[in-house]
């Protein structure tokens, strides 16, 4: 599914002439990969280290000097931090029609260069759901780590089907015994 975004066909400013624009038929996952590459290339070495280690990075607001943690994501993924590095509240503002990496880069640049302006449009929440959501997502897409784990996962449905079949078979046989007198 292609996310909505600037229409390159209709907008001459976005045409491909003299550019290295991406080929047609681009899909969401390729867009996300390119956006992640762009984000990483614009991070400072320290931010890059943080992002590689824990999929979030910290920025300093241009007007207040407050610290924010931008977590990989696009909904209430910005944590405003206190002096101890603890979350005070979560913020949400986004760039529409672009991949997550682009959203996070836009958030970084906005907070680092025009913090007050972007805070004026941001929505606020008492806390972020990022830490609660992310592990669940990771668990859902986690690949089996060992052969035993893989076999147990693959075997579980098969065992369930065999048990069901056995129960049905027993029920049929006992039904036959009931109907046919000895």
């Amino acid at each position, binding site marked *: 599914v292609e996310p*909505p975004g600037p229409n390159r066909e209709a907008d001459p400013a976005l045409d491909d002439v003299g550019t290295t624009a991406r080929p047609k038929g681009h899909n969401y996952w390729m*867009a996300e990969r390119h956006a992640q590459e762009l984000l990483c290339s614009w991070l400072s070495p320290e931010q890059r280290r943080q992002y590689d280690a824990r999929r979030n990075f910290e920025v300093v607001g241009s007007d207040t000097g407050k610290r924010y943690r931008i977590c990989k994501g696009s909904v209430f993924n910005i944590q405003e931090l206190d002096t101890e590095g603890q979350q005070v509240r979560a913020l949400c503002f*986004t760039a529409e029609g672009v*991949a997550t990496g*682009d959203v996070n880069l836009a958030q970084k640049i906005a907070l680092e260069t025009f913090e007050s302006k972007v805070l004026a449009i941001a929505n606020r929440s008492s806390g972020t759901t990022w830490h609660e959501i992310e592990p669940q997502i990771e668990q859902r897409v986690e690949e089996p780590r060992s052969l035993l784990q893989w076999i147990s996962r693959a075997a579980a449905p098969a065992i369930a089907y065999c048990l069901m079949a056995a129960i049905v078979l027993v029920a049929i046989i006992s039904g036959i015994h009931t109907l046919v007198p000895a």
Partner: protein
Amino acid sequence: MEAKMATQIVMDQTGDSRHQFDAADARSVAEAEERFKMLTGAGFTAAKRLAEGKSEILRSFDPTAEETLFIPRLKGG
């Protein structure tokens, strides 16, 4: 001597689109300036990449910027 190419990067649904221009070529610079005006006029924010992960917002076209990023209009989520 090899010409120094500057890049305008536009965030879009493909991740980004890149437009290169030769800062020493007047026609190429004029096209880049025109693109800058069209994009910022359409609501994009232009940011120039500085060293060490820093950036600066551009209010007008800077032909000396090696890398300019165009960010779609931001809105509260």
